[in-house]
């Protein structure tokens, strides 16, 4: 079963910074690339997702950029806030496999 490579493992930024989390995959057959956000003690929740027919999707302060040729997709958090501190997971849509997660801490 294909794995997904997610980086970095952890990330600390100051309030207002722009953390970027990356995911890389191997198989080109996927057509759905979501990101999930998980707070401690809670289940993951869908944050934002992209289909490969577009290169970027923005929802509020969260942006996914998709590079089909490089087989990578990234999550950008604009004007990050302490409330964004959570673990973020990318998923290969039809593979049901989660990336290992990135623990983000946004300092006040």
């Amino acid at each position, binding site marked *: 079963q294909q794995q997904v490579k997610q980086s970095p493992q952890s990330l600390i930024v100051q309030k207002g910074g722009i953390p970027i989390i990356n995911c890389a995959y191997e198989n080109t057959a996927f057509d759905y690339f979501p990101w999930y956000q998980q707070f401690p003690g809670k*289940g*993951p929740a*869908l944050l934002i997702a992209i289909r490969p027919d577009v290169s970027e999707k923005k929802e509020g302060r969260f942006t996914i950029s998709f590079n089909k040729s490089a087989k990578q997709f990234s999550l950008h958090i604009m004007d990050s806030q302490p409330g964004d501190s959570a673990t973020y997971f990318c998923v290969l849509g*039809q593979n*049901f*496999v*989660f990336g290992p997660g990135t623990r983000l801490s946004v300092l006040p």
Partner: protein
Amino acid sequence: NAGVTQTPKFRILKIGQSMTLQCTQDMNHNYMYWYRQDPGMGLKLIYYSVGAGITDKGEVPNGYNVSRSTTEDFPLRLELAAPSQTSVYFCASSWEGGGYTFGSGTRLTVV
């Protein structure tokens, strides 16, 4: 609209005991999944189902069994519990090719 409901929320089992984790969804999703999450780690897929009567193994199926007799329910059975099964278990559901809705999780400790 309850979404995905998991019961129980917490459970302590003794080694060798068995139990069933319940999961039900009211969104008429055809896909359902069971994941486990060890402390500080990512989610590992145990089993999934693409519709009633159809189940398939994920990454870590050993020690578990599932059934899917209805669209709404997807129980996970643990036989002969072992300390390695201490984890938080999440059930999720989705449309085909859509985002997941997760339950709130079951925290299981095997002692």
